């Protein structure tokens, strides 16, 4: 570990904290439906969309209608992308004559992008035409992010409103977030990436003759436009197989820093926006503090382990940290930091290959995902996931002192706690059941590249990533089979919507309640005691479930790494 490495980590965290309020202010304007400076320019587009689609943005929806409209939109989007991928061979902009994507692969990819997972069983540059990348995939990077933020807004309204029957209008939330936040931010962001070296062309490839006279086909395309929203929307689906490790996606250490910031920017802003929405910004800061404390602990372990390196390789004659699967321009610190950021948020972009990390260095990204990616988290998904844990935390605190728990002015009763437990329990159930299944069936065992405990880690990581809607991988796993495409589709769908629907139900239930005034007996949810309790609940409820699985995978791998057997 170096001073330079820790400087990077410290600067990164300071910038995230600095971004939280400005981003939160902008999000709060969209949450309230107030005009932003961009409305003058884009207002006509918004109104035109509503008129053509027959939407009344002022028509408030109850949680059921909000959820149903959201689900139907996802279904239509899913079928649209399925069609684009299946028809790839006959659609235009396919100069390399790439074949259509098979049915199981197309379904997996459509679900993957709709659910903000961006799990990729395929290699982008090998399988996808430029049209598929733009029309089939880029739109989901926007709309799945906008959907996540819309759901978070609905939950905020549940806390903020009193005796209300409605939680907002899904179509308006989704459209406003896309038009006034994601699209303009991505235009600027993409221009920065292009200036830094990311290609943006409709050409598909160029042939070079190398210095040694060998032909090198270099795949190009509309990379920057996809890259920008891939990061800002915590999607993570790369244009290229190597994702943000590819020099065209992430050309320099500066773009790398900006990419990491853009993963956290909206998630951090949403914590501030939540505080503002419930009338006390300290509530938001308390959540961000708890998130960042868990985050720093994780980064510390990855960086320590990767910088310490692999004793097996030291014995072969190379000194220092683990550089297998890392890029020289990033080095160890920026790779370790990126891996923690991308898994703490449900992004899933990678700038180094997690599969080649040391055993414990690779366990932290896996564990971050298993916690539910609530440490800053995916756009929208992070904050609503974290608020579920907050409900559990006040419930536990209420049990200890024998009072009905309250959180930001709402009584938390049996219905909310049951729904919160339901959506939290779905994740481990899905991950552990499907991983176990794959670890015994021949079709599952055919997947891993690595043998021994690391092979099991590859399987466990895949289902954690799928159900957690992360999308990163221990990429040695050959996941492009009907078996894995099928099971991972199930995991991604359940992980996304068995969380969102209960969250909306909680929003509806909270909105209907009266505000209770804080009294001397209320448990304060802004101070250090609260932050500590939150972290404890996240680690115990979110983490403990996975310890046996981690013992069989990364922990066994770590013991092997120290004692020397090879697999």
């Amino acid at each position, binding site marked *: 570990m170096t001073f330079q490495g820790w400087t990077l980590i410290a600067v990164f965290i300071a910038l995230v904290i600095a971004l939280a309020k400005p981003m939160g202010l902008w999000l709060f304007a969209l949450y309230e439906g107030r005009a932003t400076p961009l409305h003058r320019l884009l207002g006509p587009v918004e109104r035109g969309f509503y008129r053509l689609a027959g939407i009344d943005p002022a028509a408030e929806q109850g949680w059921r209608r909000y959820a149903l409209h959201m689900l139907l939109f996802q279904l*239509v989007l899913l079928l649209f992308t399925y069609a684009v991928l299946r028809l790839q061979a006959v659609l235009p902009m396919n100069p390399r004559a790439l074949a259509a994507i098979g049915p199981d692969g197309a379904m997996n990819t459509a679900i993957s992008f709709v659910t903000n997972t961006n799990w990729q069983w395929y290699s982008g540059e090998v399988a996808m035409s430029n049209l598929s990348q733009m029309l089939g995939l880029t739109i989901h990077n926007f709309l799945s992010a906008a959907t996540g933020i819309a759901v978070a807004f609905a939950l905020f309204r549940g806390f903020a409103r009193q005796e209300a029957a409605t939680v907002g209008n899904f179509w308006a939330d989704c459209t406003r977030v896309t038009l006034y936040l994601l699209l303009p931010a991505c235009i600027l962001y993409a221009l920065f990436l292009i200036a830094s070296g990311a290609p*943006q062309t409709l050409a598909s490839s160029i042939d070079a003759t190398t210095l040694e006279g060998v032909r090198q086909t270099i795949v190009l395309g509309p990379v920057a436009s996809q890259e920008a929203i891939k990061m800002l929307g915590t999607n993570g689906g790369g244009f290229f197989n190597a994702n943000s490790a*590819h020099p065209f996606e992430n050309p320099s250490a500066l773009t790398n820093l900006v990419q990491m910031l853009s993963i956290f920017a909206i998630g951090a802003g949403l914590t501030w926006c939540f505080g503002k929405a419930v009338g006390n910004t300290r509530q938001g800061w308390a959540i961000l503090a708890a998130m960042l404390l868990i985050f720093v602990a994780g980064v510390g372990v990855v960086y320590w382990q990767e910088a310490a390196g692999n004793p097996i390789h030291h014995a072969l004659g190379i000194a220092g940290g683990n550089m*297998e699967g890392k890029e020289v321009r990033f080095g160890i610190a920026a790779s370790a930091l990126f891996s923690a950021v991308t898994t703490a948020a449900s992004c899933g972009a990678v700038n180094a290959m997690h599969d080649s990390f040391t055993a414990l260095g690779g366990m932290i990204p896996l564990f971050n995902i298993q916690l539910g990616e609530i440490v800053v988290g995916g756009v929208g998904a992070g904050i609503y996931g974290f608020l579920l844990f907050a409900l559990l935390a006040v419930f536990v605190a209420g049990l200890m002192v024998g009072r009905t728990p309250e959180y930001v002015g709402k009584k938390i009763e049996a219905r909310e706690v049951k729904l919160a437990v339901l959506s939290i329990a779905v994740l481990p159930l899905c991950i552990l059941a499907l991983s176990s299944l794959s670890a015994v069936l021949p079709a599952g065992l055919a997947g891993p590249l690595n043998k021994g405990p690391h092979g099991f880690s590859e399987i466990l990581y895949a289902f954690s990533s799928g159900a957690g809607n992360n999308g990163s991988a221990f990429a040695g796993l050959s996941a492009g089979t009907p078996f894995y495409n099928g099971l991972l589709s199930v995991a991604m769908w359940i992980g996304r919507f068995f969380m969102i629907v209960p969250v909306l139900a909680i929003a509806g239930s909270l909105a209907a309640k009266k505000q209770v005034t804080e009294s001397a007996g209320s448990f304060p949810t802004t101070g250090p005691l609260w932050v500590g309790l939150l972290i404890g609940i996240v680690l115990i409820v979110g983490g403990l479930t996975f310890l046996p699985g981690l013992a069989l995978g990364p922990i066994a791998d770590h013991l092997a*790494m120290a004692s020397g057997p090879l697999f």
Partner: protein
Amino acid sequence: MLKDFTSAIRPALVLTALFAGLLGLAYPAALTGLAQVLFPAQANGSLIRHGDRVIGSRLIGQAFASPAYFHGRPSAAGAGYDAASSSGSNLGPTSRALAERIAGDVAAARSESALPVPADLVTASASGLDPHVTPQAALHQVARVAAVRGLPEARLRDLIAQRTETPLLGFLGERRVNVLALNLALDGLGGNPAR
């Protein structure tokens, strides 16, 4: 419930079509137009040309096998530095295949220089297209290149020093050398030609 459902059909269909046009076509197309005007070199892949011939991209590593050139890192992209098939090795920390590969590359590196073997010289990058090596990995190859080229080692060490990029603002990025740029400069030094 049924009314909730039917009232969503038109917005879902129409917004899918409108957003597909806006986000899937207009947004990337407009950016492509802007990029081709504002940053044409970067937008088309930061290509390096010799006359009509495209040598490669400044950002994409390429395979060097000749002893007269500095070599990049081991690559798992296709058959090596395949810029149509980026990939890391994905071999794990206890992988026998990885240990054997590293052992072989360490032995080869030791046969060329008595300097300690830098880790990046014998480990595959994440993309398989890493355009850089550390200055140590370049220095490790100086004796070989100098002998083949008939150039003094000191000149090559100077060249590496000149070509070493340093961290931005002191903390962003690592000290590194772009292998293709280094080899292009090497061809300009004279000495025995590479082929």
